[in-house]
């Protein structure tokens, strides 16, 4: 019993320590704000990596998610007297409010989160972060700031793309599988549409993106050990990012809806 309590106590202390270090890392982004200008080119590189190179996977996942939600909405309505255009309303709202930001962020937690943690983690174990510091560069400003800035700019763009392709997928599935034409689908979409829903999805996506990037930077930055340590950091960053997305999803829904 004592052993279990000791184990739990150690885990809780370690959790608080990790949260403290994470908070310090985020705060320390601002300690070298005067040198941010030096890292704008790095931020542009990261925008390409985080944003542009993620567009194909975002299109693919959102398109099929939209198609599936359309088919499932049609299935739910099959035996009711509900008008067919409701499919457009359901697909539109679920994509804007939930599926586009959540599915996109979960996919990107795997793609971007793993890349960031592995890259920074490798830099840590090969002493490249020490080398940055020994050259008087601020490693947090050099490594974390450009990634956070890139996320701030690119995640809303990715969510908008996911919305567009998710709804497009929904229309195509409705036309091909449910005998609902585009006019009916769009009528349904417009009937329930509120601009705030689109903003809410973008705010959610941006919050998820900042969580993914900051968590992955944290695990990469504090990697210990060699290749095995990088592997552990990468796994931890993806798992923690996914958990953070789920928790934030509920918190934001409670606060903003």
């Amino acid at each position, binding site marked *: 019993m004592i052993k279990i309590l000791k184990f739990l106590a150690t885990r809780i202390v370690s959790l608080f320590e990790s949260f403290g270090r994470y908070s310090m890392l985020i705060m320390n982004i601002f*300690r*070298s704000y005067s*040198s941010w200008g*030096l890292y704008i080119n790095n931020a542009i590189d990261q925008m390409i990596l985080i944003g542009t190179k993620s567009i194909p996977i975002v299109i693919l996942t959102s398109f099929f998610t939209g198609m599936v939600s359309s088919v499932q909405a049609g299935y739910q309505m099959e035996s009711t007297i509900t008008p067919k255009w409701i499919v457009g309303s359901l697909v539109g709202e679920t994509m804007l409010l939930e599926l586009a930001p959540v599915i996109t962020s979960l996919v990107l937690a795997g793609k971007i989160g793993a890349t960031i943690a592995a890259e920074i983690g*490798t*830099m840590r174990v*090969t*002493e*490249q972060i*020490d*080398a*940055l*510091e*020994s*050259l*008087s*560069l*601020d490693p947090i400003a050099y490594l974390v700031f450009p990634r956070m800035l890139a996320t701030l700019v690119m995640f809303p763009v990715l969510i908008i793309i996911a919305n567009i392709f998710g709804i497009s997928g929904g229309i195509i599935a409705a036309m091909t599988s449910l005998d609902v034409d585009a006019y009916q689908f769009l009528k349904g979409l417009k009937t329930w549409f509120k601009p705030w829903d689109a903003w809410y999805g973008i705010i959610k996506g941006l919050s998820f993106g900042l969580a993914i990037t900051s968590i992955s930077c944290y695990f990469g930055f504090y990697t210990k050990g060699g290749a095995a340590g990088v592997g552990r950091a990468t796994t931890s960053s993806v798992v923690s990012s996914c958990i953070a997305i789920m928790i934030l999803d509920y918190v934001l829904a409670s606060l903003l809806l």
Partner: protein
Amino acid sequence: MILIENISKVFSSKTILDNISLKVKKGESLAIIGQSGVGKSVLLKHFNGLIIPNKGKIIIDNKIINKLSFIDLQNIRKNMSMVFQFGALFDSLTIHDNIMIALDHLTNLSKIEKEERITDSLLEVNLKDIESLYPNDISGGMKKRVGIARAIAIKPEYILYDEPTTGLDPITTDKMINLMKKVRENKKLTSIVVTHEMKIVNEFANQVIMLNEGNIIFDGSPEELNSSNDKYIKYFILGKDIN
């Protein structure tokens, strides 16, 4: 001058350095030796504030660096370069940009002057026409030399070497030692080197400290080290147990 006063460092309840004190005068070359895992690299990283001691003081040019803010510490580091064990070159940058990043940040030179500085630094370590290559395109020995080129490009007063000859063959090791000597003479640098290599101790250093179990067990000249009658020191120098 670098003065280390009673520093101790503990990692996960294990004492790595225990009340260490030493002095390095300007222009001197200090070798830190000892078995693997005794904390030589940990001690070296205290010199430029990469590791902060749990207690004690590190005084560089009359400033206690372990009490400085991050920005003030960065200013101290402008006069102090470090050459890492495996070069620690930035993978995503070319050799040119690996050196340029230091010059961009630490100097106010014009673009032409920076380019000249990069070429000169690489020539100093006997490398040329490799500026456009990436670290993965060159050998381990070349990476170490580029690491030295990056370190001397900013014209520091102090240079720290972390096991500069580890993993090199005897010929390349000899060339590396000659290079370190050349850099020291040309640039009038104060050098601190962590090593297992007795050749470095005998040919490069004029002061040696030996660490064991967190303490300095020897502090003196290479000649004094070689004539020591201490069994452990003899074991380390000769590489065989004399009992």
